[in-house]
């Protein structure tokens, strides 16, 4: 799980140049309003603390951009 997580972020970092060049996703998100980044210490389905936050984030995603 840890490896997967690192590789996803590394992958994103690796593709940062192309994102910056095309300026697509990041800029649109900013223009559209607020982007929230949320970091959990455990799994989102832990029946506990992490899940409680994840449920809230799921609700946030339903808000109009």
């Amino acid at each position, binding site marked *: 799980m840890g490896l997967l*997580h690192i590789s996803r972020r590394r992958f994103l970092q690796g593709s940062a140049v192309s994102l910056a060049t095309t300026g697509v996703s990041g800029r649109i998100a900013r223009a559209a309003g607020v*982007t929230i*980044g*949320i*970091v959990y210490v455990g799994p989102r389905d832990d*029946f506990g603390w992490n899940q409680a936050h994840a449920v809230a984030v799921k609700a946030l995603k339903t808000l109009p951009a």
Partner: protein
Amino acid sequence: MKAVEEENVAETDACAKTMESMVNLDGANIILGTSFGYFEPFMVDLAKKYAKVEFSACSAAVERRQAPEKSRQLFRLSQPGPLRGRRRGRPVHQVEQARFVAAKPIASVLSNINSFMLGAKKTNPNAVVQVIFTGDWSLPVREAEATNALVDAGCDVITCHVDGPKVVIETAEKRGVKTCGHNTSQAPLAPKGFITGAEYKWETIYKGYATQLAEGKPLPNMVAGGYEADMVQNSPFGAGASEEARKAALAAMADLKAKKPIYVGPLKDNKTGKVVIDKTYDNLDPFLDQMNYLLEGVTGSIT
């Protein structure tokens, strides 16, 4: 609204890297760090580096460690005080022997235990609340051991204050003991014995942040609240909640919504018998965030 998430992020450089990439790659305007250990030095450093990005940490401990002069505007310290409030809302109706499996004896946990005891005694003055501390937020083996030991010694209800109540709830259910949960509903794990649980309602807080940011308004430096502010909730009643328990719980919740105080002083600690709460305090009074004792009525020790 756009939200980017990352799970299983350790309280090390890893969290700083994740947060930084959320800012740089995903264009995050606000970072919510949900674990205590993310705060210092990681979020503090990032907040200095990215002055236009909001960094919010949710932890009672953070609040205590951040003296006002040190806490810069960049930090939202979302500590819903109601941890102590919501416990009172739980239907520990007519419980005789309640047991608590808790992580660490820090203020937010102690207030949870103390207010649970006060709530239990409200419906049954003879109720006994005993606590065992496991020592950390997530120690599944110790949590199972503690639960089994408490069941072996005899009890009616078990509750807990640990990151993931899964093990405690499942173990108690297996042993035929009723449970009160924490953080989210554990009803699916205890189809027979789950009564209800104490939850934060992060949705209220996070939606508030989102709205304020979208409107270009400054965020509050500290957020605290309870039922009166819709910042906490009880898990839906499970099969373990009797009709009387539901009634008692709903009445307690109504009291909390009406800001009725939980801690009606004077109250003594359970070790020296000394008065530790000198008078009646408002449920959100910062005095209660300094709690470092178990009240008379709780069996157990913080040392």
